[in-house]
């Protein structure tokens, strides 16, 4: 019996062993299948289950002014979404959400009851709204971080900056043009997920702003922008105008320091303003420049040799029949030289200069000054203006363009063209962006100033500058632009507006003043354009005062030292001091018509003179001037101090001594404080303007 039992046990053990072995083989086979055969697919599935891809929203790069002041900055704020399928009661949720967010309950309920699995409730909410929704603890309602654009200076430079749409895309102006630079890329961070779906950053933290958008540094200076905006707002208000634009440009580089428009808008709430207000009209609207264009016809005629500065033109006493039309001047003028044509803004004089210049070169110079083509400032909506092709020019086209009718320009074009004269004849491309910077503020790309072409020679530019200086002299059309302490070169313009949809002109006007300052060493080109002023529409009346306001404040801000003031414009110091004799401007070397010079507005009929043009005969208009005509001369209007004496500074305070020195064109080197006790050059000694005198000051107790 015993061997039989023992055998039966072995059989049973063998069977169990076989079963276990079979089971083990099956497990091993399954392990092989899972770990070897299906490994790639299963590993991928496991990775999906255990890990999360965290999409970090790109942060839009900031926009700075040239002094690195933030003009536009992005912040992450909450957007609220809902998954309607996970909400227990849509009507109840809609009611509570609408109350917390101040939304329309019915519209929200319809959205939540729709078939879409994901809906936005409200995007880019305030922190208070987000907190109010969080306290509701609604299932199926969640939060998502999105960037929101803030413009901390509100409406400052709004038309230049533009604004950003709901999906973070730039919609206007710089925000739109440089969207790809500012926007940045989505950063994806992979992290392990725990049972509660919380991320475990066991593979490293996200890099610091690696994919944030680049920042832009603009050429705009926020302080100059503010000055320009304040002045243009005041000018528009005073003239009861529809609109106004002021541009401030640095002529040597083409840097746009300010583009101010009135009325403005707040880009933080851009939807509250009409689309018309949000456009940057400096680039995207055109206007007939009127008389400001005369400086270009004069520059072109001088450069080509068609006229000389001393040439004189008969201005027909205010009415001139030309190519079947009658051209008028605002005031009747007889004989005017070129400088007076610019100063008094004679249409007839400008027309005759253009006629002598000829259509071909006139057209070429207009193009060279940058008209009829976009300014190249890399700005959306940079219009080319309207310059009829030369083939379509009639004689009257040429004549009217000479005084700024029949051509349409953008404010930036005409500012850049005047800047070319201020820059010695070289046209610069308007520059609006200085550099791109990364998230750490390092410059990653620079935008260099670009010279487009030389349009006129330095000599011609200097002569035209001299003519433009006369515009702001007493009796000139731009007298209101005279800026205390600085000589201004400029030109006024008043143009009729074309009637929309029909031929001809309306009764509406555009008044403008464009110029540069200081005239002999230009630091700023400023254009002021007032659209549809009520009352007196002349540029010298509505735009020139704003020019003066911008120039005075900006030059002080830029620490541009003022030139000596004429004695009558200086606040007298407490002590009577010797003043300088100021010589009259030197006589212009212009041959007088027989009978001598007569005030232009009172001159007699043409036949009382022997006009230069009449002597040349009917064909003389296009001929070069005769050799006896005076050579080019630059009109000098800056007072020249003669017989100056060094004043006695003894006993004066520093302020008094400075005032006195400036009035006498003397620079003083200050040493110490208190009252003046000695000076390096004795009082009464001859002193040329610019002489430096060292003055020692000491406090009365010490002396």
């Amino acid at each position, binding site marked *: 019996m015993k061997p039989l039992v023992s055998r039966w046990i072995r059989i049973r053990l063998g069977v169990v062993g076989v079963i276990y072995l079979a089971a083990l083989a099956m497990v091993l086979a399954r392990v092989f299948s899972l770990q070897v055969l299906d490994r790639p697919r299963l590993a991928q599935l496991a990775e999906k289950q255990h890990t999360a891809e965290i999409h970090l929203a790109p942060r839009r790069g900031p926009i700075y002014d040239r002094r690195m*002041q*933030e003009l536009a*900055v*992005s*912040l*992450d704020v909450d957007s609220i979404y809902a998954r309607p399928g996970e909400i227990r009661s849509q009507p109840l949720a809609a009611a509570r959400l609408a109350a917390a967010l101040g939304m329309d309950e019915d519209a929200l309920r319809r959205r939540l009851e729709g078939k879409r699995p994901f809906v936005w409730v409200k995007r880019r909410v305030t922190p208070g709204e987000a907190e109010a929704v969080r306290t509701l603890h609604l299932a199926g309602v969640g939060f998502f971080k999105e960037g929101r654009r*803030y413009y*901390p*200076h*509100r409406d*400052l430079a709004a038309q230049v900056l533009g604004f950003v749409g709901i999906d973070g895309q730039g919609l206007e102006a710089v925000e739109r043009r440089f969207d790809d630079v500012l926007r940045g890329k989505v950063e994806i961070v992979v*992290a*392990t997920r*725990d049972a509660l779906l*919380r*991320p*475990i*950053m*066991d*593979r*490293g*933290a*996200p890099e610091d702003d690696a994919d944030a958008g680049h920042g832009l540094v603009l050429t705009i200076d*926020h*302080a100059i922008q*503010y000055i320009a905006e304040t002045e243009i707002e005041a000018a528009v208000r005073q003239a009861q105008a529809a609109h106004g634009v002021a541009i401030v440009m640095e002529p040597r580089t083409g840097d746009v320091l300010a583009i101010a428009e009135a009325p403005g808008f707040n880009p933080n709430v851009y939807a509250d303003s009409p689309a018309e207000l949000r456009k940057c009209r400096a680039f995207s609207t055109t206007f007939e420049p009127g008389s400001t264009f005369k400086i270009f016809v004069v520059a072109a005629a001088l450069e080509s040799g068609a006229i000389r500065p001393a040439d004189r033109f008969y201005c027909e006493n205010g009415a001139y029949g030309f190519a079947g039309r009658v051209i008028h001047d605002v005031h009747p003028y007889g004989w005017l030289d070129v400088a007076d044509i610019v100063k008094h803004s004679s249409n007839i004089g400008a027309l005759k200069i253009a006629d002598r210049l000829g259509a071909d070169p006139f057209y070429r110079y207009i193009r060279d000054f940058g008209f009829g083509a976009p300014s190249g400032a890399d700005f959306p909506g940079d219009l080319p203006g309207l310059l009829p092709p030369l083939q379509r020019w009639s004689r009257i086209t040429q004549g009217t363009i000479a005084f700024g009718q029949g051509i349409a320009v953008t404010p930036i074009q005409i500012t850049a063209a005047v800047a070319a004269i201020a820059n010695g004849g070289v046209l610069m491309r308007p520059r609006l962006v200085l550099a791109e910077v990364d998230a750490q503020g390092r410059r990653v790309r620079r935008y260099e100033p670009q010279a487009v072409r030389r349009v006129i020679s330095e000599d011609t530019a200097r002569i035209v500058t001299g003519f433009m200086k006369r515009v702001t002299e007493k009796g000139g059309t731009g007298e209101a632009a005279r800026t*205390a*302490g600085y000589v201004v070169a400029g030109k006024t313009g008043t143009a009729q507006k074309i009637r929309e949809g029909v031929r001809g002109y309306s009764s509406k006007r555009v008044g403008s003043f464009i110029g540069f300052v200081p005239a002999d060493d230009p630091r700023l080109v400023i254009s002021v354009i007032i659209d549809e002023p009520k009352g007196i529409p002349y540029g010298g009346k509505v735009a020139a005062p704003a020019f003066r306001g911008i120039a*005075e*404040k900006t030059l*002080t801000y830029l620490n541009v*030292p*003022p030139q000596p*003031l004429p004695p009558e*414009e*200086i*606040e007298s110091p407490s002590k009577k001091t010797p003043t300088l004799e100021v010589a009259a401007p030197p006589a212009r070397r212009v041959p007088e018509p027989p009978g001598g010079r007569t005030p232009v507005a009172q001159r007699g009929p043409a036949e009382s003179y022997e006009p230069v043009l009449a002597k040349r005969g009917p064909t003389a208009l296009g001929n070069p001037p005769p050799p006896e005509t005076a050579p080019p001369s630059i009109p000098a209007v800056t007072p020249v101090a003669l017989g100056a004496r060094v004043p006695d500074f003894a006993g004066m305070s520093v302020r008094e001594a*400075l*005032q006195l*020195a*400036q*009035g006498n064109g003397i*620079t*003083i*080197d*200050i040493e110490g404080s208190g009252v003046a006790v000695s000076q390096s050059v004795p009082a009464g000694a001859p002193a040329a303007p610019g002489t*430096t005198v060292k003055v020692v000051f000491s406090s009365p107790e010490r002396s």
Partner: protein
Amino acid sequence: MKGAGRRNGRVWRRLRTFGAAATVATVLTGSALFYVWTRLQVVSWGYRISQASARQEELRQANRELRIEAASLRSPGRIESIARKELGLDYTRPGQVFAVK
């Protein structure tokens, strides 16, 4: 005596075998525990990195908010208003600006 010696030899062999097996088991168990400990450390540090990242982002956000506030406080319109109304300042008049050497 001979039988007792053979028994002792078997016992020692078994003890050696047991000792070796126990050593292997201890090493294996220790390695496994060490592996688990390192994984727990990785997870723990992962949580801490995650929290630090969130805190860093909070501070950055606060920094950005403060920069916006600072920029709006530096707004030229606000500064001019304070200068005029509170300090009684005004723009310079002609003749008040001097170039000092």
